[in-house]
């Protein structure tokens, strides 16, 4: 009994000795120093810029959205989209009246009613807004002051209207490429706390889901795009205004989102349209692919279902990257010992297989668990480790590689006797 325990202990010690190799640790360290150098020292390489521009707004998970998404359309029956066409206040007022009569649970109008226009149209719209108790109007946050971390103004909706309805801001954080990946649920303003348009609508429809969103206390939430425009019932203005159609069955108890989302090809192709990760051209420039109102619908759906995108912590990503690199150095070492003549091509093949496998794992994690793993450092390490290893070996074999030769023997490729 005692003997078998001693044997197990010996095996464990041997295994640890095999796993803990200072030589591999040194290679890993050099790889990460190189990655750190690359990431901090960015020479102004003009000739690389066209490539950078095409790929800078790209994430591996975009491929999951754009190419590996299930193409089967699943109808989202809690949300209905109503196209307002070119916003005309009189017509919107008439549409609002019809929609209100069908008793939806929440109505969101993604049209900015800034300033006053024709008095008759404005009065009609105001009457419609007053009648709608469950209405959210779109607004805009303006003049951010960094010193106090606060927006100074909520604009985009005239005081004539905003006294009688809730407002939610329609600002999205995005880079100059206009790719919408995140939304900010709440922001501080000079007038107090403001909620985003989608969050405010979710609050009306399902207060519990809205509370869950607030409890997360995230400055930014990654939008989980689960639907495209085809997943929602889509009404045109003429259908809403057609009094022969009873809208109650389609709108009662639902969320009605009114905004510009023309189905007509070529009709205002750019108005309120943005790039999303669903864009089939996941790198380089292409046409914007999603209307703002559909983005809001996706956010609402995500909040109602509580299906948020989770992120692997940065420290864990780096730790995984370090382990992955270290493990590979050990494996290459073993392969070299066993197959010294062909270890070079074998390692290259392993590198390619590993890259594909990693891509697969990242995709599966995101697709199945909505877990986003930023493995950029790991991918860089995988691409670099073998070349670093070869350079290190070559350098230590030369006579002028005095520095390496001065290191203790454990840091050398040849193992101590």
């Amino acid at each position, binding site marked *: 009994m005692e003997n078998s325990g001693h044997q197990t202990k010996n095996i464990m010690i041997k295994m640890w000795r095999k796993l803990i190799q200072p030589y591999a640790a040194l290679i890993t360290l050099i790889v990460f120093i190189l990655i750190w150098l690359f990431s901090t020292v*960015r020479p*102004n390489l*003009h000739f690389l*810029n*066209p*490539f950078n*521009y*095409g*790929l800078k707004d790209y994430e591996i998970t975009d*491929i999951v959205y754009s*190419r*590996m*998404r*299930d*193409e*089967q*359309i*699943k*109808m989202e029956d809690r949300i*209905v989209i109503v196209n307002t066409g070119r916003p005309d206040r009189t017509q919107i007022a008439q549409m609002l009246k019809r929609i209100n009569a069908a008793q939806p649970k929440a109505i969101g109008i993604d049209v900015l009613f800034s300033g006053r226009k024709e008095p008759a149209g404005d009065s009609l719209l105001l009457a419609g807004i007053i009648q709608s108790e469950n209405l959210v109007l779109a607004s805009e946050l303006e003049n951010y002051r960094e010193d106090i971390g606060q927006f100074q103004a909520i604009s985009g909706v005239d005081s004539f209207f905003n006294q009688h309805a809730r407002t939610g801001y329609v600002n999205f954080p995005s880079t*100059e490429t206009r790719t919408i990946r995140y939304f900010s649920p709440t922001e501080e303003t000079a007038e107090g706390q403001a909620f985003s348009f989608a969050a405010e609508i979710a609050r009306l429809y399902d207060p519990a889901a809205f509370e869950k969103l607030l409890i997360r206390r995230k400055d930014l939430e990654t939008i989980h795009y689960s639907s495209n425009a*085809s997943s*929602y*019932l*889509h*009404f*045109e203005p*003429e*259908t809403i205004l*057609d009094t*022969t*159609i009873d809208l109650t*069955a*389609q709108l009662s108890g639902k969320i009605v989102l009114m905004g510009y989302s023309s*189905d*007509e090809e*070529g*009709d*205002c*192709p*750019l*108005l309120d349209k943005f790039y999303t990760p669903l864009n089939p*051209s996941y*790198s*380089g*420039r*292409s*046409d914007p692919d999603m209307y703002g109102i559909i983005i809001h619908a996706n956010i609402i759906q995500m909040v109602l279902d509580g299906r948020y995108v989770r992120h692997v912590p940065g420290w864990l990503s780096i730790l995984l990257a370090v382990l992955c690199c270290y493990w590979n150095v050990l494996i290459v070492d073993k392969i070299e010992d066993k197959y010294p003549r062909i270890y070079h091509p074998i390692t290259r093949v392993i590198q390619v297989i590993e890259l*594909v496998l990693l891509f*697969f794992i990242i*995709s*599966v994690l995101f*697709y*199945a668990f909505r877990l986003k793993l930023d493995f950029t450092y790991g991918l860089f390490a995988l691409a670099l480790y073998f070349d670093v290893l070869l350079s290190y070996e070559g350098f230590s074999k030369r006579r002028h590689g005095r520095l390496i030769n001065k290191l203790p023997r454990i840091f050398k490729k040849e193992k101590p006797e």
Partner: protein
Amino acid sequence: MSKRLFFLFAGLLCGQLAMAQDDIVVQSVSGKALYYAPQESKAQNVYPGLRMSSSGKVRCQSGATVKLLQNGEIFTVKGSKLFVLSELSQQSKSGSNVGFMGRFSKFLSGSMKETKNEKELEKNHRRYMEKAKAGIGGFSEKTYPIQTSLLYQGTLGVSPVTFRWSGALPGEVCRFQLSRKADGQVLAMALTLDSLFTINLSQLALAPGVACEWMLIEDKTGEAKSAKMSFVYDPATAGKVLADLRNLKDFQNASPAEQALMEAYTLEEAGLFYDAAMTYAAAAKSDAGNLLVRDTQAAFLSRMGLLEDAKALLRR
């Protein structure tokens, strides 16, 4: 007993299949369309959310479009011909919609296909190069206070050319400088307070096909205020490109507005962006109110990085 069970299950299966086939939902309607339910003589209006029987029929009125959802797939019905809904199952592509693993391997094999031989690789490489170049930030890492557009890139054929820019401070004196790319020889220089400058390239000592660069410089300090923009002046290129187009039968049969759009598109394809812009502007002027011309011009301006101009055009 087992026979009974078999028939019960078979019956349930058939019922399920029939129900699945019957489940056609209208996703959206643009314009007016009518639905003829089986064994009912009176038609009813089609509206989103309406459930239809697969043995029913749909007729769209002129210009109308109906999108139908069946078994997770969207089908578009248009045209005034009476459409029998049972035909949807024949159009279905649902068999090709594989699982995640299938889509993953399809993506990988697709990526490999794009680089399967040198010719393909070269073709695709060029495609990505063009897409990347379309970004206005593709010239240098540094951001300049004055922004220009992609219109003044590629080949310029027409003359005079009005160079425009944005971001200059009011009352700021800028030096407009046009020089030969090969040796940096300055061909034209002017101090301007405006945000545009017109120059007749045909009057300059410029051989066709010679690459030039233009930029805006701070007059006092000599500091660059804009990125350098390169172009080639070649008045003959546009003529050659358009001559080929004008020989086409489709072009000859097209309406004047369509001809103008075809010309503009061809010029853009050939890298004559400024010439294309001029053609679009002329078409918009001669055919004011034509929505197709307006929208095509807006799309072109957005491709050139002039998004605000495109939006302004659409708001009109």
